[in-house]
């Protein structure tokens, strides 16, 4: 069965449907078929992390998943982070602490940090660095990003 098939999934809280060839990468489906171009492609082999999205609440590389594998899943992309026009605390902190320059790595950084802080709400700086080592940034030297995650952690803890 190499031909296209229908998939149903939830993306940023809304039900979506797609008609995809099995070999289509999830990231290409998100960008091309759903028009959600906030998720970026930087390497297509799992290293750069620009394509990271949340699949059923957990950070995953959308370049290392097929779109068909996301059938039935809940996917959250960077477009779904802000709620009702209010930035997510991580987005606010990235803005405040200059956690981005070109912004190309930013979606992957945000979603990786989002998942990480769920597992580890009070991380040390070294733990933050380890978690963020999943995503490459070539602009910021990571300094602003680390500060942003440090600043967002207590806000997210309080929000729980």
């Amino acid at each position, binding site marked *: 069965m190499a031909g296209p098939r229908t998939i149903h999934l939830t993306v940023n809280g809304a039900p979506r449907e797609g008609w995809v060839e099995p*070999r289509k990468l999830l990231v290409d489906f998100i960008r091309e078929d759903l028009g959600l171009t906030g998720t970026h492609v*930087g390497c*297509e082999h799992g290293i750069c992390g620009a394509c990271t999205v949340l699949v059923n609440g957990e950070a995953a590389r959308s370049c290392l998943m097929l779109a068909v594998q996301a059938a039935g899943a809940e996917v959250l992309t960077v477009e779904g982070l802000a709620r009702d026009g209010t930035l997510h605390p991580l987005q606010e902190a990235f803005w405040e602490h200059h956690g981005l320059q070109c912004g190309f790595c930013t979606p992957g950084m*945000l979603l990786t940090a989002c998942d990480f802080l769920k597992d580890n709400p009070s991380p040390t700086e070294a733990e933050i*660095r380890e978690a963020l*080592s999943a995503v*490459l*940034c070539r602009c910021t030297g990571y300094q602003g990003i680390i500060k942003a995650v440090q600043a967002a952690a207590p806000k997210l803890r309080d929000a729980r």
Partner: protein
Amino acid sequence: MGTVVVGTSGRWVGRPLKRVEDPRLLTGTGTFVDDLPFQNVHHAGILRSPHAHARILGIDASAALKALGVVGVITGADAEALTRPFSVGVSAPIKYYCLAVDKARFVGEPVALVVARNRYLAEDALDLIRVQYEPLPAVVDPERALEPDAPVLHEAVGSNLACHRRLVYGDPERAFKEAEVVIRERFRFPKFGSTPIETYGVVARHDPVSGVLTVWSNFMGPFIMHPLVARALGLPENRLRFIIPPDIGGSFGIKTSIFPYIALICLAAMKTGVPVKWIEDRREHLLASSSGTDRVTYRELAARKDGTILGMRYRWYDNVGGYVRSPEPGCTFRPIGNWVGPYRFQDLDVEASVVMTNKSLTGPNRGYACGHLYFETERMMDLLAERLGLDPAEVRRRNFIPPHEFPYRTPTGGLYDSGDYPAAFEKALTLARYDELRREQARARAEGRLFGIGLAVAVDPSVSNMGYDTVALDPQFRSKPEYLPKSGATESATVKVDPLGKVIAILGTAPQGQGHQTIVAQIVADELGISPDDVTVVDEMDTFTRIWGISSGTYSSRFGSVGSSAVALAARKLKARLIAYAAHLMDLPAETFVFRDGQVSPASGKGPSYSIKDLAGRAHWHTESLPEGMEPGLQATAVFGFPQANAPDLQDRVNSSNTYGFIAEVMAVEVDPDTAAIRILRYVTVHDAGTIINPMIAEGQIYGGALHGLGGALYEELMYDEEGQLLTGTFMDYLVPTASEAPTIEIAHVVSPSPFTTLGAKGLGESSSMTVPAVVANAVSDALAPLGVRINELPVTPTRLWALMENARGAKR
């Protein structure tokens, strides 16, 4: 963090304003080239040479042409028939086309292109193209490539030497004769690139009716790219339109080298008649986008016993890969005006060889050639200190250009605008608590630990003068009547007020993450006495609608000085018009008015004021009210150019850049004697970039630059085997430092405003990328001084360092 915030020079300039760009980028609503929507767009896949050096005997694309979704295949034969070779910056007869024509000269060189309905199908069709190659022997080492029996890449050139210049300034012969000490050393600098996370992207659409080819691409010019592509395609420049999308995902110089692909995708769009899109993938990027050159250097330094440098000799072998792609050989000549760095010596002898080998092509990479330069010079300074038994800080102190000599003319023609090198250097030493670090080192050494302290200083050039590259041609060539000299560094900006009083600033630059919208809003807000929120900044380049020049673009740290100057001047022009208009309305002389808080008011304080909004309304709605001779509308355009950007003279002296900042750094490291792992304990960097417009953004540039330098110093190298196969073709093997490898960076500033720019600002974009290779090499060498290990080759990987340590220990045993 020892962050020192500089004094503010305006209400908004000098403040760490949050960036205007961020909300869209944080919410995934930015627009990068791959995000642009197009009708009926088709996708290109590029077939690349698997051989480092091979003759192309034939290409059979018949099966690919029949494959599902394919609308066309382009080969070297098309490139040869329909395009011209790109102009190259050397006199050697090198034919460089957008597709390999007769031979492939590096692994990854484009050989054919498929246009298909989507990228998946295009890649399927690539598998069906049969190319018959005759593999030829390859050469990858620049010194080996110059041996008489080395394989020759370009038969028409006759050897692999693309350019050779011997440049002598002052009397180096005498300096070396009079020297009390002479130091000689050989260095190797690696081939690495900044690998922006967003790769190259090009979309081209040909309109058969108007004949216009429109290109959307994440280049950062138009710079020289537009004329280069127009000429290659044989198109009049007014039929070639370049547009950049609102957002570019980093460049660091790398995206300058996209232009051959622009020509290629244009060719595909013209030939197939459909809009064609190509997004480079990471494999393609590592194989065949761009990188800095790898260089072999022989250095000699003549000095007196007190540490005074008398002169230097540089012998360089710069490896530009299979062809010379413009603006190469800038790798050799870009820093010509600051070849002597921050030091006073006058006698210099440079022998530069630009060599072609079977590696991928090179081009500007953050710090363009300065990382190479200062790695060598700063290592030599430490070697001199070691030889003389002096503290490395002292050796530098004794050679700095003194502050009272600015503006300072270097022997190579550079005109250093301003600076206080001793002050900045001492600030770095103080911030790092250098003396305390040395005491700590003594204690550590007593315990047998490998603790090292490195220093590095650099003159940080920005805003390249278009003329520097022509030093690649010898003065006789440049004196021919038919030769067109090159010089200049300009940028334009327009500031306008719309009928309801809101201000729009339009730039001629193309940022890739530097926050120009924010910075420009700060500048305009200060000039017009309004809030940055009232200023909308348009920074999308469109060659049909923007005012641009041959040097326009965001590279060589141009924006901070030349772009900001153009913006401030445009705002000032507009301000003068607003004043003239208000004076006319009140029938009073213009001199009696001042511009304050967004209003034009009588200086006396008596009488009514006119707000910008008020004046805008009148000027737009009621043109009759304008003074005679004032053109309607409220806009002002300024083109800022540096008068100091001259063409090289007959002695090959040229002011290669237009502002020159300064960097002083201190790094402390500890090397694990068992694993050769390097831990960075302290890293202090002090910058003098003149007036700082937005300290937050400035620091971001420094952090990023430092990490690029660190990549080249410790992790990143495009490695090839003897046969010219790339060994680091994935991000698993080409190691980009992550958050875990990034050191904590302590930044401080010294401010020597540039007398040549409107706001006194200099560039800062390349910053520490040019010093970190040097400071790391010096720190690690210092750590390993007890073993006698010297770092003269980068990157210092654990396996290399361990081998050096083992050798040294073996020799000691």
